[in-house]
């Protein structure tokens, strides 16, 4: 099989994931896109490992080992990422990435306070959601 097929597929998948990371609004969709990117890399690793194990007669199988590690790390990453998204959602009442603008210029050192006042408008709803979400 031509090595170009998996390599091109991997590049296209990677760029698709890249688009998702940059364009999606919901944090969980961004996490999905990150998974796509990781898988594209995995495909690359496996394809090149298969090619090298024959062509170069090397037996280290580093590509496959690294792919396994990537899978494990991706699993850990998705767990932590979801926990963070949930914590953000509990505190701010949203998981939209483009609304998390605490680092914006002009936000001032009293950022958390103004955030509280912002979310005060939807305080009862947010509180109910929090209680529900953490139960």
């Amino acid at each position, binding site marked *: 099989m031509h090595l170009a097929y998996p390599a091109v597929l991997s590049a296209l998948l990677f760029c698709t994931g890249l688009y998702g*990371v940059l364009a999606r609004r919901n944090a969980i969709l961004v996490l999905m896109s990150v998974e796509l990117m990781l898988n594209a890399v995995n495909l690359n690793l496996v394809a090149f490992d298969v090619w090298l194990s024959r062509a170069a007669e090397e037996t280290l199988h580093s590509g496959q080992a690294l792919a396994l590690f990537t899978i494990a790390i991706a699993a850990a990453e998705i767990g932590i990422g979801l926990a963070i998204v949930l914590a953000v959602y509990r505190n701010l009442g949203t998981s939209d990435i*483009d609304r998390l603008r605490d680092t914006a210029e002009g*936000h001032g050192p009293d950022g958390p306070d103004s955030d509280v006042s912002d979310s005060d408008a939807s305080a009862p709803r947010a509180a109910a959601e929090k209680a529900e979400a953490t139960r």
Partner: protein
Amino acid sequence: MTTTTLAVLVPLLPFLGAIAGLLLGRTAPGFVRPLAVLPALASLALAVVVAARQGGDGAVDAATELTPTGSVPIELALHVDGFAALTAVLVTVVATCVQIYSTGYLRDDPRYPSYAALVSLFTSAMLLVVYSGDLMVLLVGWEVMGICSYFLVGHYWETPEARAASLKAFLVTKLGDVPFLIGLFALATEAGSFRITRILGAVANGGIEHPTLIALLLLAGVAGKSAQFPLHTWLPDAMAGPTPVSALIHAATMVAAGVYFVARLLPLFEASQAAMTVLAVMAAVTMAGSALAALAQDDIKRVLAYSTIGQLGYMTGALAVADRGAAVFHLLSHGAFKALLFLAAGVIIHASGTNSLAAMSRMGNLRDRVPDAYWTMTVALLALAAIPPFSGFFSKEAVLGAAEHVVTGHTEHAPAAAGWIVLLAGLVTALLTAAYATRLWLLAFRGSGPEAPDHGRQPLTMTTVLWVLAVPSLALGGLSFRVLPDWFDGQGLAPTVTTSVLGTGVALVGGIVTYATWRHTTAHAARVPLGAVAAHPEGDAGLVEAEAIASHGPAYGDIAYAPDPSDPGRLLLGPLHRPAAAGFHLDALYTALFVRPVRAGASLVRFLDREVVETYVRGAGTLPRWLGTAVRRAQTGNLQTYVSALLAGTVVLAVAAVLFATGA
């Protein structure tokens, strides 16, 4: 111990006392008074021993060079001749008296520890000047005295007068010190050494090429330190300090340093006729002008300050006629009676609660309140007025006699013109001195009116010192004018008939005229009530004096002048009275000539800095600020925007790298 060791210990002991006083002042207040008085007493004893051993014979010289210091070596040198030995005795006597007096005078002052330590340091610096055989070491003592006088004059720094006076004293003396330093360097370069003995040797061999320039440069420093015209203006204002400080610094030691310095290097000055003439003119203007000003002052301490300037004028006059024996003789006797005058004035101010002569002349029985001050001050004033047989008579006659010697052509050392100037100015000043001494005595002790407030007896430490100092004022001149020439250059100091008769005559005339005027004007005293007394008469003397100085300006409109029609000085001086009270408006003149141009220059510089230089700076800051504003708009807080920009940049870089690597 050898004489050298003893002489080294004399300045060292007060220095150690000052260090210990500064270190222990906070932690062990009980040690402060012994640490102030005992080193002074010990160095007095040592100075007496040094003087006795030296005995007017050949000078004791010792020198050690610690380390090579460039082309002209600086040595820790000692040079004790008759002048140094006797001046050191005077300095230690006055310093001891002042330290003892201060324990009573500043009894309750919270800053007494630092005050006493500074007085000790000051004494040590003056003794260093006196004993030093190396001009650089002398300069160290010279400058330490300057800074100590700054601190001591500003002792009551709560009052604006004291702050201004301390700054003025420091700046004016420093103004003289700069040319002084340049002169020292020039002198050392030409002589090849800072050692006084070698310099004098070079002068004797004609090794100094520019004696006039060097002498004039040195004279500037001497004028600043010894308060000679035109740099004398700091001394009257320096009376804002405590009275013992005035006695120590501004009567006996610091101002004496300049005269003493010229006396040491007199052969150098003699090498230049121009310098001697300048010295004579300076002395004449100083003594006549200050005597006129003293006649118009209302503050008792300012009277004494102008009197000090005048007496220093006598000393520089004696130097101008090349008789340093007479100069140092007058320095010794003047040091004793002027210290006495200041200390007695401190007692009087304490007792009366005011420093104004106008207010004292309206107190009935001031002399009964302070009998010690009354009697000792009478002695000191007689000495000041040069009435025989008090010490001032002999020393002043020595000066006038020396001038007469020059006039009659008995000496080659000084130009005859200098002799005439000094002689005439000296006689005029003798008249005026007697006049203001009489006026001071009459106004202070012969006042009439309500009785002075009774604060009980003055502290024993203050009155005892007065009697100790009264002894040399009374007897020093008569007993010693035959002995002193052995210690000095050998020129006779005995009064000559002509000058004695002339001097005593004009002094008597001055006194009698003043008395008559006072009889005439004292009738007005009752009609114009005047008076301002301290608010806390029961406080210690230092507090009373500080309040008196602070209240004089508000009460009379000026710190030196009082609108008192019963003042005999007003009638005697006539239209001159007002300018004399203001020190002939020299301060105003200096303000117009120097201060205003400097201020205008400073404001010009400030304008240039604020408006011109800062415009460039601001302009340099504007562009980055605009850039910052533009960049700030990119900080949206949206992470996706950031990551997009990051990845776009990465792609561009990667493509560029690939293109570069493939050579496309």
